[in-house]
């Protein structure tokens, strides 16, 4: 008569599967002749099942050996492959996130740089230039105050003067307007591109050559 045996065997043994070490916990129950085993691989939690033959009179060591022999049949390839894919996918996500963070940092630094470069702006007008040019229409001037300099600009002709203070900047702007006016005045229109032509027209509206030496 078959003796039914029910044995719980728990043993941790390191077995090699495809070169990776895992703990094999074997829980074997069953009858005297044929039983079943369940192996759980730690820490992955993959399980395999199979059959295990108990021989009458089997003792714990034999069962253990059988279990270790059968462990080679455990196919956890699918679970392992799935886990590997998940890990690879997570790794890829991490790299994407790192790249996005780097791009955000660069964007923030660019914005901070641009903010630092913003001057305080105010406006004024020029009503005179010098003894060579008469102002016939007030010239709108934009004053830009930075930490260590002031720029006075006549944006319509892309002219500007720089100084330590407003007075010096305006003085240099006047000189710039004078230079540009006389340069454009002596250049024929077919030698001027679109922008210089526009600048010349603007200058002719706001200043007049009063005939003194250039």
């Amino acid at each position, binding site marked *: 008569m078959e003796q039914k045996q029910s044995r719980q065997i728990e043993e941790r043994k390191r077995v090699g599967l495809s070169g990776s070490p895992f703990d094999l916990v074997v829980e074997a129950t069953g009858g005297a002749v044929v039983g079943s085993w369940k192996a759980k691989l730690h820490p992955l939690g993959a399980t395999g099942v199979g059959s295990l033959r108990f021989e009458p009179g089997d003792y714990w060591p034999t069962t253990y050996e059988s279990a270790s022999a059968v462990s080679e049949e455990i196919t956890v390839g699918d679970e392992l492959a799935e886990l590997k894919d998940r890990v690879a996918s997570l790794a890829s996500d991490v790299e994407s996130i790192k790249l996005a963070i780097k791009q955000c940092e660069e964007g923030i630094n660019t914005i901070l*740089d641009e903010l630092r*470069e913003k001057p305080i702006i105010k406006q004024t007008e020029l009503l005179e230039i010098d003894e060579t040019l008469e102002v016939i229409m007030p010239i709108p001037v934009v004053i*830009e105050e*930075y930490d260590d300099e002031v720029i006075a600009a006549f944006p319509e002709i892309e002219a500007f003067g720089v100084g330590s203070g407003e007075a010096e900047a305006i003085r240099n702007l006047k000189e*710039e307007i004078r*230079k*540009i006016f006389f340069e454009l005045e002596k250049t024929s229109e077919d030698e001027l591109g679109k*922008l*210089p032509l526009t600048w010349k027209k603007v200058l002719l509206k706001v200043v007049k050559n009063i005939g003194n030496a250039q």
Partner: protein
Amino acid sequence: MGMLSSLKIKQMTNCLENKLSMDFRGGKEPLAWYYLDNKKVLKAKITNVHGGDTLSIGVATKLKNSLKLDREGLKMLYNCPMSGADYESKIRRMGIV
């Protein structure tokens, strides 16, 4: 500090003279023209109030605007990736010749 505050005057002047054939000789604040098709197309000025060797942020910004470049474009022109021919193509595409 940002990119615009680190531009060396000498290097920028050399760059504009060599790549764009602009002439910065003459006077305290020389006005240089950029020519295309024998026409004066753009002008630029390089000036330095405080005597240091780098362009101030204000002047660098004005220079960038005069050359019709953004920050990245000015950086490429200054550092080397953008050649004179590249710049010319860019200006022509803008339609301001």
